[in-house]
């Protein structure tokens, strides 16, 4: 606790209770007068708030005290007299002061007296022992305690936390003692509004008499603060209205604003300034502190920004910066080109997919070329732009730093483009590979349910994924699988993935985008009917190495079963291909091929030729099918295994049996890519 109380003197005088008189230090040098304050009987303490000077009219004093009492709910009264004597004693004053006791009756009546220039004080507190004015008076022991009125008043800013309920006892009484003093002083602000220098009827001395502010500059600043704040608030409201107007709303602009950190910073600064110059008073100490903190941080920011600005302007640094910019950009572009040339060759001895290398390398080189041309175009204007942007440092160092960061991001935009391209392609490959991975585990992405379900694949679909059976026997039919089963060739997919991974070395893909059909090479099995085609020739040493799944499939093939159950199936090793590393060309699909689709036709339509099935509504989605099912009364027809229809069969709906353990028991069929072959 700071030094608020100072015990000066305690007088031993006669029997009686100890009376504590709290006296403000600012009144110690005041002229003689009346003591005005509050009497707290529970602690027998008198809190003196001010001194009323001569001459005064008693009626007016009583009126003032009544007003203060009404306004502040504090029981302010005249407590006694204060006498500050000159060197020569004034006897008449003494009698006069004693006579005042009859005018303003108060129990006990306090009489404080001090010799000017000496440190000794006289304190007397008299209490009448009877109702009549002539009853004998007894004196109490007085303890005079000095307190710093301004600090006690201002300490109300942070009211103490409410104490928990206590049992009634002596603890509450004395704990409330000091709190009562603080409370009294804090709530009597109304009394401190008029001063002895004011022209009112009553002249008071209290802490304000020392001067409301020590310096006239601070006082003037306080008076001027009001109109200045109003003006600034108007300007800021104009600025915020302008920034919120609809010109800046449409999509490209709003996207750009959200990406630039300068705009973010400016908005933040606008909010801060609005808070600081707002005309509303702060409601509580927390808000006041927030306002004060914001103001100090804004001022500090602006000071640092102005410092930076003065440093930049001093030695023509803008010109130096502008001159240094273009060679640095050239150097960066040169290094990037070297890197790309290296990647297009045989980086670190790896053998790469030559075509993909060339494509990506040339693409990125062209980007760099474009970017360098723009930089060279802009080089005459850079100095002016930098100079004008440097002016924004007036708003604060943070704004200048955000502009710097924006400039850097704009200058390295091409590198960001490289990252985006690389990341996108990488994500596509990852997605494809993950579908393949799911295939070999016997699972599938269920689009309707948005989850991974187990699924038993047809052998042909598994072949399509690029893993040939060991014996080579099996269905010669090449069916293009639906998108639900991945259409990628595993080996090719992995090689391309490796190349792409090298082409964007910095950033791992963190999100999965949609799979773009047509990017990946699709094997075109036209004309290949028997045995594995060149597309499936592969490898699959790689696939074998990667996949340990499903070894039971060759066993099932050997047994002649066409259907492969989903979960629990295991992989098999594949023979080594002769030329696994030869890249195969991307084969575009024919223009007449419609995109693959996965439908769930009703059970009744299984086994029907496609045109007929379409007539019956097989092309409708499942939800519509449910509606139609109610209209159809035909029982579902079981079909013989469609192996007999394989040869020459063109339009068939093949059933697929889903794994028994989990997943839906619905029969899922795929439509043939019969148009493809």
């Amino acid at each position, binding site marked *: *606790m700071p030094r608020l109380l100072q015990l000066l003197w305690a007088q031993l005088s006669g029997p009686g209770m*100890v009376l*504590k008189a709290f006296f403000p230090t600012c009144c110690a040098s005041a002229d003689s007068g009346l003591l005005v304050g509050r009497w707290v009987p529970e602690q027998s303490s008198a809190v003196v708030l001010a001194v009323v000077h001569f001459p005064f009219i008693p009626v007016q004093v009583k009126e003032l005290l009544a007003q203060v009492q009404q306004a502040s709910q504090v029981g302010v009264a005249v407590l006694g007299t204060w006498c500050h004597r000159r060197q020569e004693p004034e006897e008449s004053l003494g009698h006069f002061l004693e006579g005042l006791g009859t005018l303003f009756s108060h129990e006990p009546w306090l009489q404080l007296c001090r010799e000017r220039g000496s440190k000794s004080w006289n304190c007397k507190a008299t209490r009448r022992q009877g109702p009549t004015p002539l009853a004998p008076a007894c004196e109490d022991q007085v303890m005079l305690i000095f307190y710093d009125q301004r600090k006690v008043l201002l300490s109300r800013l942070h009211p103490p936390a409410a104490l928990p309920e206590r049992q009634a006892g002596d603890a509450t009484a004395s704990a409330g003692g000091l709190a009562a003093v603080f409370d009294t002083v804090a709530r009597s602000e109304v009394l401190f509004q008029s001063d002895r220098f004011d022209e009112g009827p009553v002249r008071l001395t209290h802490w304000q008499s020392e001067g409301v502010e020590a310096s006239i500059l601070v006082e003037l600043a306080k008076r001027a603060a009001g109109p200045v704040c109003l003006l600034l608030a108007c300007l800021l409201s104009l600025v915020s209205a302008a920034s919120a107007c609809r010109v800046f709303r449409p999509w490209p602009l709003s996207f750009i604003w959200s990406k630039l950190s300068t705009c973010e910073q400016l908005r933040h600064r606008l909010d801060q300034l609005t808070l600081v110059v707002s005309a509303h008073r702060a409601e509580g100490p927390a808000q006041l502190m927030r306002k004060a903190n914001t103001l100090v941080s804004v001022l500090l920011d602006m000071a640092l920004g102005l410092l930076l600005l003065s440093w930049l302007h001093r030695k023509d640094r803008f010109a130096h910066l502008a001159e240094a910019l273009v060679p640095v950009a050239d150097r960066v572009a040169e290094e990037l080109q070297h890197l790309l040339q290296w990647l297009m060759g045989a980086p670190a001895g790896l053998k790469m997919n030559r075509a993909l290398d060339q494509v990506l390398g040339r693409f990125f080189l062209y980007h760099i070329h474009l970017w360098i041309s723009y930089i060279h175009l802009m080089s005459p204007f850079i100095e002016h732009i930098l100079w004008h942007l440097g002016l924004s440092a007036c708003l604060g160092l943070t704004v200048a730093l955000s502009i710097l960061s924006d400039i850097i991001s704009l200058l390295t935009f091409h590198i960001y483009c490289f990252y985006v391209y690389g990341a996108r392609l990488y994500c596509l490959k990852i997605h494809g590979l993950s579908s393949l991975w799911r295939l070999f585990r016997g699972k599938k992405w269920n689009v309707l349910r948005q989850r991974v379900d187990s699924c038993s694949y047809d052998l042909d679909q598994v072949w399509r994924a690029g893993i040939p059976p060991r014996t080579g026997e099996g269905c010669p039919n090449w069916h293009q699988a639906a998108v639900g089963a991945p259409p990628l060739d595993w080996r090719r997919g992995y090689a391309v993935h490796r190349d792409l991974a090298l082409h964007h070395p910095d950033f791992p893909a963190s999100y999965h985008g949609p799979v773009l059909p047509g990017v990946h090479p699709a094997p075109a099995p036209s004309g290949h009917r028997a045995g594995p085609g060149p597309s499936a020739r592969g490898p699959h040493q790689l696939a074998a190495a990667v996949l340990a799944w499903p070894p039971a499939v060759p066993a099932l093939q050997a047994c002649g079963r066409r259907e492969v159950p989903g979960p629990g199936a295991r992989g098999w090793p594949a023979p080594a291909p002769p030329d696994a590393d030869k890249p195969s060309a991307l084969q575009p699909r024919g223009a007449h091929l419609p995109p693959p689709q996965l439908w769930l036709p009703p059970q009744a339509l299984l086994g029907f030729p496609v045109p007929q099935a379409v007539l019956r509504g097989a092309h409708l989605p499942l939800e519509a099918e449910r509606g139609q099912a109610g209209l159809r009364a035909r029982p579902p027809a079981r079909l013989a295994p469609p192996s007999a229809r394989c040869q020459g069969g063109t339009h068939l709906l093949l059933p697929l049996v889903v794994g028994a353990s989990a997943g839906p028991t619905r029969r899922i069929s795929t439509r043939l890519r019969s148009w493809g072959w």
Partner: protein
Amino acid sequence: MEDERSFSDICGGRLALHRRYYSPSCLEFCLSCPRISLRSLTAVTCTVWLAAYGLFTLCENSMILSAAIFITLLGLLGYLHFVKIDHETLLIIDSLGIQMTSSYASGKESTTFIEMGKVKDVIINEAIYMQKVIYYLCILLKDPVEPHGISQVVPIFQSAKPRLDCLIEVYRSCQEILAHQKAASTSP
């Protein structure tokens, strides 16, 4: 009334206990620590300057010597302002509270005030201080939540560290006033 007695602290230095008795309910103790001795000041200054001179002979840079002088002066000022305590005062007013004041050699004063309602008791406690067992006077504060608990222990005369005889003097007077205060508060 006032009286003054001399005691010694735990290291053997001379202490002066100045007691002022204002009333049965008000008492003030002032413990004066020994001043900074010329011998220790000279010793520290000489050590610092010898070390600076040694560095100077190594580096041949006269800035070291002026830096040593500045460091000595600043160090002395800092020591006097932040570390060296001249007096420690304990003021007890039974209806108000207990106030502890430490006045530093540079004139700085720091005050702590505890309301009487929070004070549970004043006791002499033992502590292990380095290799010694010492006694110290402390104030026990009440716990607002638990009526018989203690929330805090506030030691008094921490830098003076008087011995047990001095502490007993202070302890007796404090207990008289506290008993007086308890009697006054419990009586209707």
